């Protein structure tokens, strides 16, 4: 009898592919939530590995806050063309126009929180019963508790006290009408794993992940890209700096880090040495210790 070990990236990849194929096999109308960030780009790669040369058994769904980095949208459209799959866009602007949500005001205004409503409406409109997302357990401690198949009620809510047991690699995707399941194939990946995978697979990324020169202002100790979406006043001093983004979301809540890393290897070296977590670069998590848990209970990704 011989013995063997799978390399860790191969194991993580095989697990993620297995999870995606379970989604395909168990649900009627699944979707893949695509944000344009590196985690969802990784998901697209994994979907190719799971289903090619066939088509994806789900469309990509982008919840668009309207406050995007231009580079992300350019990337998204190019990618969709390359893979030849369907893209559905839910616009936060529509939710605002319909009066379902109210735009925040004030200096720290952001559309990040409004996304949840648009997401839930998009899910309801298309009757999606499963949404694949790129959340990872190492990001945040409420996420560290979430199942890979995470059942949400009709209101999109996560109830951490009533999670189903999740045994072995058997995923129970049975739900009642109106409910849906959020599925996280890369739950067990760390930020560094994602970067190493991107490198191994030679996956192209939006340019904002790499060091570039940009006008930024400092807010609450963090570097924010100067943009029309940021409510700026006289106190905000615009500086020109070499920066990159570790995570990509809405322009009004994604902070940059000063960096010279313009190659994948440099980024990987920088992250390995980094002493700040990825979520530390997001204003939305700074609010309270239970910020993510509360947002998830409310239907967030």
């Amino acid at each position: 009898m011989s013995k063997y070990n799978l390399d860790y990236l191969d194991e993580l990849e095989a697990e993620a592919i297995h999870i995606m194929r379970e989604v395909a096999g168990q649900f009627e109308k699944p979707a893949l939530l695509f944000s344009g960030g590196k985690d969802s780009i990784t998901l697209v790669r994994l979907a190719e590995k799971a289903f090619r040369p066939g088509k994806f058994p789900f469309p990509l769904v982008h919840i668009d806050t309207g406050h995007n980095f231009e580079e992300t949208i350019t990337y998204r459209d190019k990618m969709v063309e390359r893979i030849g799959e369907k893209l559905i866009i839910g616009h936060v602007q529509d939710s605002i126009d319909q009066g379902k949500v109210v735009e925040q005001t004030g200096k720290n205004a952001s559309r990040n929180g409004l996304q949840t409503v648009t997401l839930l409406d998009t899910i309801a409109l298309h009757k999606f019963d499963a949404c694949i997302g790129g959340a990872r357990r190492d990001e945040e401690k409420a996420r560290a508790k979430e199942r890979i198949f995470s059942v949400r009620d009709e209101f999109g809510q996560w109830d951490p006290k009533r999670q189903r047991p999740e045994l072995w690699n058997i995923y129970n995707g049975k739900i009642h009408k109106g409910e849906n399941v959020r599925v996280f194939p890369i739950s067990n990946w760390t930020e560094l794993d994602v970067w190493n995978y991107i490198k191994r697979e030679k996956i192209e990324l939006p340019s904002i992940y790499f060091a570039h020169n940009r006008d930024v202002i400092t807010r609450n100790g963090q570097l924010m890209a100067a943009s029309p979406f940021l409510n700026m006043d006289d106190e905000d001093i615009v500086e020109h700096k070499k920066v990159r983004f570790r995570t990509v979301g809405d322009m009004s809540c994604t902070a940059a880090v000063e960096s010279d890393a313009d190659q994948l290897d440099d980024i990987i070296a920088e992250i390995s040495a980094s002493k700040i977590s990825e979520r530390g670069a997001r204003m939305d998590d700074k609010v309270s210790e239970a910020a993510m848990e509360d947002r998830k209970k409310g239907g967030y990704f």
Partner: protein
Amino acid sequence: MNILKFFTAGSVDDGKSTLIGRLLYDTDSILADQLEALQSSNRKNDDGSIDLAILTDGLRAEREQGITIDVAYKYFQTDKRKFIIADTPGHIQYTRNMVTGASTAKLAIILIDARNGVVEQTIRHSYLVSLLGIEHVVVCLNKMDMVGYSETVFNAITDRYKTLAADLNLKDVTFIPVSALKGDNVVNESEYMPWYKGRSLLHFLETVDVAEEDYGLARMPVQWVVRPQTEALHDYRGYAGRILSGSFNVNDRVTVLPSGSSSVIERIEIFDQEPAQAHAGQSVTLHLKDDIDISRGDVLVNSDHLPKRAQLIEADICWMDARPMDDSITYLLQHNSKLTKCKIREIIHKVDINTLEKQDAHEFKLNDIGRVVIKTADELAFDVYSENKANGAAILIDSRTNLTAAALMFRAVAD
């Protein structure tokens, strides 16, 4: 580099969360902003040092009550290995969450408070470890700082545990005296226990052999049939799935179950690669020489090593739902990608998990463990759990609520 998944078990307050915190802290795996949040938290140890347990207690209710309710997963790595830790709750009422964390683990760390020795919870957790067939067990005698780092205490408890381990048929058991709070023998070797000749916990975790045995039971449940149906790929028909156990080679004869038809592997695909062989754990797409009817829920197996096939099956069961077992209703049974209907035919016994006594039983409630005979609507192609975990386990789903009601570990064909 490979991955080791392990979990921690022990009674409430034995120091599970502290131990994990210590592993992360001493391997420099805690990032500055997380550390800052820890330092500013008002949950502190009596001596004012930071409470490492809050690193894993991620839910509001857990922080409020100071206990672990659900499994938290933590990740760290050294230059030898990557680790995935499941911090599982110790309370009896959260047994199902512990089983969740344990079901995917290769190694169990059982904590014992050196002041208390082997207690009821130790027995219960060790029983679960044996039931779930966890390959390696490390018993950490924690809080050694509170018993004067005494060798006598250590020996007395390990002797007691060895009897238990023999009763439970646990195979690979290692004992390490530690102080999670002070850091002795967790990552760094302790200077207070010169009598202990072994290495630290981390050293053990880094070196324990967890390679998969490549035994002959090749099994691959079909999850999805890839059919592009384009002009260029008109005849393409690939069976996609993750290999549960064993390995498949091109030209191997395989049998499709439950139909029993057989064919030969023509090609193995892993995306753009076409390897001649694929192993357990890999997600692949298989192509067969003959055109046979195969769909999701079928399993491809090596024709020389067929699994058992039955509708009446004896299984160990762990009940996980607040609604008690009901032998008058029909459940759904999910065995990898196979879904079928199922009834409980007979309760053989229930185990008192604190004393390990087998008892007659008429009902099964939340967290009860025992043995039953089930009857399935379709025939299952399974292996005995103790011989091949991956193809020997299933879950029951209550179709009224859709909740996962029980974990099943197959033992034998019943008559």
